[in-house]
Structure formats: structure tokens, C-alpha cells
């Protein structure tokens, strides 16, 4: 697996935005869709999310595995949730029992189905506004974006530094696995989780200890190049342009409308066709 960030959406509409926009939109969107039970409300938001996602220009080939993984996991989660959550916690008109799940004896109604679908769609739409963070922000812009959002300068640089360490950590992991295999180490196939965890030690311990020992030198190197002052210049200049303001304004509006609707109780019941 490739652990370096993939800048798939280069050149697209969203990639030309200030990276802070891409970080703020998911937050606004989360506020908008949180707690909405009415499928129609979520669908309206999802339409907005879809337009946003299309603007990211992420090639389908690059992320289809991600989407497949995400959809499978989320579907399993939603199905389990529907089975475990008793239907009577929700009000609604569709109380006619369509069928009963064996074993748990959960009654499945239109309400249950509609609600399950709402959760699924919400997760998918959250993924749509979240993917551009992964694929449309140039990795070197992430630190400065956080810094300009008010995070401590040093911690913001830590985000950049994490991405710097990813490939070397991956290489070190490989080297250690190779070294241990030559000592007859094999990945445990045991069913006992405790034993499996214990057999991780020959890999986890050296990789961690090496990284920590090397980090001492990196700390020195950073100190020796003046890291840690109160004021720091970031070479990347960030400025919101009109389009950025429009996008943020638009998502703020969606959030305000949806929160108002929720407060007014308009989106609090499961919608049954």
C-alpha cells in the first residue's frame, strides 16, 4: 500500500481554492446534517455535497477502491444498527411490519428502512465532502492551512512533519519485517487475540524505538534551524478570494437553514413515503 498522500484532484476547481475552504466545508456540512432524521432533508444536503464532490475532479479510477471499502463498512454498520435498535424508539406512520429479522426478532417496518437509508446516505454524503480534504489539498499546504485557522504554529508544523515521516516509517516497517522474517518470524495465524498481539512485538517494538531514537536528531536539527519562535513565516501565502467566500457562505447558509429546521422540529421525524 502507498502511504504517501495522493494529490488526485490537482488542477480541479476545488484544488484552486484556499485549502482552508476544504477544511471548513466538512465542518459546516456536519453541522447541517447532524441529527436530521427526515430522509428528504438529508437528500437535499446530499445533492449539495454531490455538486461539491464533482467540483473536486477526483478521478474515479483513483478512489473506487476507497469508495467500495467505505460503502461496505458503512452498510454493515447501518444494517447492524437497524437490527439492534428497536423500532419503537421512533415515531412515524409506517409501522406496518414488513418482515421480522430472525434471531434478534427485530421487526422491520418502512420506518426502519427509511431511517437506515437516511443514516447510510448521511455517511456517504459526509464522505463526499471529506474526500477533497484527502485528495485536493496539496500535502505541503496542510500545515499552513491549520496554522491560519488558528492552530498553534508549532502543532501546525507537526502536521507537515507527520507527512514527512510517513514514507520513512513505511520503509522502516518493511526493513524490520524483512529482518525478522530472516530470523524465522512469521505472522501469527492464531485465533487467540492475545497471542496475535504478542507476536506483533518483534515488529512494533523495533520500528517504534528506532523512530524515537532517530527523532532525537530531528529535534536537534529543528532547534538548530531556529524552530519554535513566536512568529513564523509560511512560504505558502493563503488568501480567500471571492469564490472562496461564496462557497463558505453557501455552506454556512445550508447549515443555518438545516439547524433552524431542526430546531423548529421540521426534520425530526422519519419520513415514510
Amino acid at each position: 500500500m502507498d502511504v504517501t498522500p495522493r494529490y488526485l484532484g490537482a488542477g480541479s476547481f476545488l484544488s484552486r481554492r484556499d485549502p482552508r475552504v476544504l477544511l471548513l466545508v466538512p465542518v459546516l456540512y456536519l453541522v447541517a446534517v447532524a441529527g436530521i432524521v427526515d430522509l428528504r432533508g438529508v437528500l437535499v444536503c446530499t445533492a449539495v455535497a454531490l455538486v461539491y464532490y464533482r467540483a473536486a475532479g477526483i478521478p474515479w479510477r483513483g478512489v473506487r477502491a476507497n469508495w467500495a471499502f467505505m460503502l461496505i463498512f458503512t452498510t454493515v454498520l447501518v444494517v447492524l444498527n437497524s437490527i439492534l435498535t428497536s423500532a419503537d424508539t421512533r415515531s412515524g406512520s409506517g409501522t406496518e411490519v414488513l418482515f421480522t429479522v430472525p434471531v434478534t426478532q427485530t421487526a422491520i417496518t418502512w420506518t426502519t428502512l427509511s431511517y437506515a437509508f437516511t443514516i447510510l446516505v448521511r455517511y456517504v454524503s459526509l464522505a463526499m465532502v471529506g474526500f477533497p480534504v484527502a485528495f485536493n489539498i496539496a500535502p505541503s499546504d496542510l500545515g499552513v492551512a491549520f496554522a491560519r485557522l488558528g492552530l498553534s504554529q508549532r502543532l501546525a508544523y507537526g502536521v507537515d512533519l507527520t507527512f514527512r515521516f510517513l514514507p520513512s516509517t513505511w520503509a522502516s516497517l518493511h526493513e524490520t519485517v524483512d529482518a525478522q522474517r530472516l530470523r524465522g518470524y512469521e505472522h501469527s495465524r492464531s485465533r487467540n487475540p492475545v497471542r496475535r498481539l504478542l507476536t506483533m512485538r518483534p515488529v512494533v517494538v523495533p520500528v517504534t524505538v528506532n523512530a524515537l531514537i532517530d527523532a532525537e536528531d530531528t529535534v536537534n536539527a529543528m532547534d538548530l534551524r531556529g524552530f519554535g519562535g513566536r512568529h513564523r513565516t509560511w512560504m505558502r501565502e493563503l488568501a480567500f478570494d471571492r469564490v472562496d467566500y461564496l462557497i463558505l457562505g453557501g455552506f454556512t447558509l445550508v447549515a443555518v437553514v438545516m439547524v433552524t429546521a431542526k430546531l423548529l422540529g421540521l426534520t425530526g421525524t422519519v419520513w415514510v413515503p
Partner: protein
Amino acid sequence: MNADAATPRDPVLAISSRTVVFGAVGAALYAVLGLFSFFIPGTQSVAVRPAFALVPFFGKRFGVIAGFFVGLVGNAIIDLLQGYGLTYWNWSVANGLVGAIAGLIFAYLPPISRESVRLVVTALGSLLATAIGLLFVITDIWVQGNGIDFKTFLTLNYGPALLADGIAVVILTPALDAIWEPLSKRTGR
């Protein structure tokens, strides 16, 4: 942060270049090693991620901020690499809280010289931090509206996660900590 008791401790929330570098190193480690997980036999949802043990370890050894950073950024990167995007953002925050709380707990515990006692205390402290930190996932109830009740939260989200992460923490965190103990004083810092 200093191993030597003779000098005053750094303030718990101080951010030095050490905090930044060790936070970043930890997050990268967690992200890379965290790509590996396995299911506890007989369950379909309880995935043990051995690398989770790193989160309380970094909290304990390198402080509240580094611990929080490792959990939050590390988990966010795993999600990005695996393709969840930011959908499960609250899990990243919960991971961060585990590291931060572990940092807090161990910052106020006196150093323990007996190795066996230290191992047990490390395991219990890390488990406690995990139990408290993961409670943040309760925010799912806010996201999903009234559909997920507290019982579902406990049985579907919190319980399995605590079980899986708890096992990893109890077994691997003390093991890591024991290996690091004799090395921590070595650097002369």
C-alpha cells in the same frame, strides 16, 4: 517530559520542538502500523488494531499534547488512507483524547521504580484512558439524531471498540513502555 526528577517538569501543556517531533513521529507510526488489524474470532465487528497501543504510550512518555496529536492525526490519516475520508471524525477525536488523558494520568503519577508494579500501572492507566477517551464517540448520537440510543451506542460502538482497543492497550502498551524505560534516560536531554 524529562526523566530526571531533579529538574522541574515542563508544564503539562507546553509545546516544545520535542512535543512536535515526537507527536509527528508517533502519528506517522500509528498511521502506518495502524493499517494492520484483525478480527476477534467469532465477531464481525470487533477489529483489534494493535497499533492503538501507541496512543497511550506516546501520551505517557511525551505528554498530553503529543498524545492527543498522535491519536487524532494518526487515526485521521488511517481513515484517509483506508478511504473513509473524514466521515468518522469523532473516532479521531476520541483517539486523540485517549492519548491526552493517558498523558494527564501519568503526569500526575509519581515515578515507579519496581518494574512489575510499573507494568501493571501502565496497563491500567492506559486502559482507563482508553475507556474515558472513547466515550467521545457518544457524539454519534448527536450526528444520527434520536435514532441511535444510548444502548445502541454501548453495544454497537463503545463496547466493541473498548474491548478491541483495551486488549491492544493492556498487552502492547506496557511492553513498549518497558523497552523504552531504560532508553528514555539515555539521551542526555
